[in-house]
């Protein structure tokens, strides 16, 4: 079974530039999560999708971050414009949404973003 795919793996940009990350979840997983993980901290949930609808985006800085999952499969997360404090690893995860299967999130390898 293919895992969660993310690209790019690494990205270096200057502040005020834009960047986009892509995630392809495990086939059949209705729930998709984007997390931001700053070095030394636990992953922080940015946004959660159920199919192509947003379930929770309460911690997404909406003035600069946006995310979409138009067809309910793959997803993109965009930052525009980037700030120095956005330097982090961006993790995508997916899960089934039925019963305790929803407890098992499958994470991708992440995209390490460095903002200079």
């Amino acid at each position, binding site marked *: 079974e293919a895992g969660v795919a993310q690209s790019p793996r690494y990205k270096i940009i200057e502040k005020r530039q834009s960047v986009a990350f892509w995630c392809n979840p495990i086939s059949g997983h209705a729930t998709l999560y984007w997390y931001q993980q700053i070095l030394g901290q636990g992953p922080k949930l940015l946004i959660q999708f159920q199919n192509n609808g947003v379930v*929770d985006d309460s911690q997404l800085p909406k003035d600069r971050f946006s995310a979409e999952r138009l067809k309910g499969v793959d997803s993109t997360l965009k930052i525009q414009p980037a700030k120095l404090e956005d330097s982090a690893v961006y993790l995508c*995860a997916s899960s089934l949404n039925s019963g305790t299967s929803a407890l098992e*999130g499958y*994470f991708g390898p992440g995209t390490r973003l460095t903002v200079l």
Partner: protein
Amino acid sequence: LAKTTQPISMDSYEGQEVNITCSHNNIATNDYITWYQQFPSQGPRFIIQGYKTKVTNEVASLFIPADRKSSTLSLPRVSLSDTAVYYCLVVPITGGAAGNKLTFGGGTRVLVKP
């Protein structure tokens, strides 16, 4: 969402059993307890989940007392490769998508020494 508290770090030696306790005093009836493991430069990986009593799989055991206000992840006979951050999550299962939120805290950094 129930708040979780776990130690920031723990040291152990190869071959020992490691027990990490997580407190979740305000756990709700429909909350499940789940643990994840994260190695450096990788995403978290699901280890185990439970509701009450004891659950065991090929990786770990999870002990949950009757009041469910805490849980203990037990890693038997650890090796150097078990050095990682371990996260305790309390996740409400409500049958709807809105409840299935995987919220991570700071985790416990476990260092296994030779």
